[in-house]
């Protein structure tokens, strides 16, 4: 049974960066033992129950963007500790340092330029492994800056959300990032540029209650937890168990709050289709290099 020792449970988000060398992984939902290479080929979706395992921003970039097209921007915007916040266990600044895992650019979101199917866009991917993808000043500023860039260059905007909400450790500043990102989006959307919001597991709190729910099109991965309040808070407030499937992607589709459920295998294709739709709608000037301009045709030709 020595091979069993090699079976490791899925890495906790905190450790995901140092991807385990283990060959086998266990699906957290169905318990299926999965061959790592197989899982990777399957875009980290369980082959038995289709559970979409959480990805890092780098993994999303690899899955979605044209090869070599992604360039990080705004990595120089880094966390500080405006409140000198300290909880029962540690200082916020120490927590941030630990979450950076040696890379000072790491934060709750990675932002940059990219191309999908040849179409240039501004892309933000949230990183749950960094303090639950929580939104503090850095996440808000990077996203606001990215939206500004997309507005200046008339590019489409895609944000892949994965976050527990606002970051408590920066107090009121974190709350204000909701207003900041929404205000920037108001400008962006007034300029008739497309914003596609992709929701993954989980998207809750101050992130779902700001930019994530404001996409011109909103798609979500299957089985993701999406909502305002976390299930535990709701359970404690109302003092009863929650219905099964509550606040999951499928529930949101049924209630009318997302446009489509898109499995990870089809995400690139779906985003490409949407980007092409919007770029052909001739609102973004910098797009459609990949699409030859159509010759105007006359009747009878």
């Amino acid at each position, binding site marked *: 049974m020595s091979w069993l020792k090699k079976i490791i449970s899925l890495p906790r988000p905190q450790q995901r960066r140092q991807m385990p060398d283990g060959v086998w992984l266990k699906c957290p939902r169905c318990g299926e033992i999965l061959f790592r290479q197989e899982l990777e080929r399957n875009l980290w979706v369980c082959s038995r129950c289709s559970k979409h395992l959480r990805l890092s921003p780098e993994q999303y970039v690899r899955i979605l963007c044209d090869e070599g097209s992604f360039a990080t921007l705004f990595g*120089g*915007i*880094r*966390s*500080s500790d*405006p*409140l*000198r*916040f*300290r*909880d*029962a266990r540690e200082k916020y600044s120490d927590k941030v340092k630990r979450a950076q895992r040696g890379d000072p650019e790491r934060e709750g979101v990675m932002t940059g330029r990219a191309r999908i199917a040849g179409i240039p866009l501004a892309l933000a991917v949230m990183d749950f492994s960094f303090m639950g993808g929580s939104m*503090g*000043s*850095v996440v*808000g*500023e990077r996203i*606001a800056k990215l939206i500004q860039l997309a507005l200046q260059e008339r590019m489409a905007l895609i944000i892949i959300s994965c976050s527990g909400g*606002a*970051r*408590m450790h*920066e*107090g*009121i*500043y*974190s*709350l*204000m*990032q*909701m*207003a*900041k990102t*929404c*205000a*920037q*989006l*108001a*400008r962006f959307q007034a300029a008739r540029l497309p914003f596609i919001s992709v929701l993954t597991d989980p998207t809750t709190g*101050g992130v*779902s*209650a*700001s*930019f*994530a*729910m*404001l996409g011109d099109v909103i798609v979500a991965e299957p089985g993701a937890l*999406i*909502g*305002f*309040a976390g299930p535990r*808070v*709701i359970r404690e*407030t*109302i003092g009863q168990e929650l*219905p099964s499937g*509550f*606040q999951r992607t499928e529930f949101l589709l049924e*209630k*009318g*709050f997302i446009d489509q459920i898109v499995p990870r295998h089809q995400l690139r294709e779906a985003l490409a289709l949407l980007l092409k739709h919007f770029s052909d709608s001739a609102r973004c000037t910098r797009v459609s290099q990949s699409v030859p301009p159509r010759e105007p045709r006359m009747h009878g030709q």
Partner: protein
Amino acid sequence: MPGGWLEFELPLVQLEQRIRDLQTLAGKQGPDVADELRSLERKADRLRRKIFSKLTPWERVKLARHPRRPYTLDYIQHLFTDFFELHGDRAFGDDAALIAGLGRFEGRPVAVVGHQKGRNTKENLRRNFGMPHPEGYRKALRVMKLAEKFGNPMLSFIDTPGAYPGIGAEERGQSEAIARSIREMSALKVPILVFVTGEGGSGGALAIGVGDRVYVLEYSFYSVISPEGCASILWKTREKAAQAAEALKFTAPELLKLGVIDQVLPEPPGGAHRDGAAMARTIGETIRGALAELDELTPEQLVERRQDRFLSMGVFDGGTSGKEIE
């Protein structure tokens, strides 16, 4: 909480009662009590200063949640004439936790939104303790658009523990309602004045809080999370709420230092609940002054400055746009 008073203010309340009793007595019997009255009043002043000059953040939280604190409807009564309440989001229902309506401020037509708590259990069940559902925010947004259409200034009164975390709220899109309200408010082409009159509870507060001016009453607070919620996550017990209240730096003077609000509005001696009319007068003067300033701006300037204001919020390395607390 005997008689709806907080423990730390009770000695003061009792002393003031004694003074009032003595005054009544003096009115009947003559002037012998004048000396004693003066001495008691001095004593009350000293006691009031002693209690209110070094309030802890947790005591301020209690004042902000004081069961006698004036609520939105109280301020509406003091500040506006011809108030006409508007109900319903035109889609699902009406939310009594959030008031909206039209009125006149010193003769000028304005629109008003605000959270509304109840004074007793029965009222609180109806008002849901001031915690709105999505239809509340959608009603507020409807009235904001109405204000924009007719060029009326918007006045917003914030006093909520937060947006309601319940099944119906999630089913009807609490997140979407809040997000949309924040975005639309940031682009509204009329002046918006925001007053945090009690609890500023997170996204449920910010949803009607994107203003050209944001004022916080002296003993109000405005926070990303309730002190109890923060304590239960970071200290693993709600019992540590007082510590979380300190760490979060959410009292009115701290918010001013952090640069996220415009002004702290001083409360009457002993707090807004001791003299609601005086508090309303202070708010009224503030409205008059702010509208005079904002009337100078075009709608486009208003929106641009309001958006710039919120875009500048945050503190980070590699470009700081807020202030740190020393």
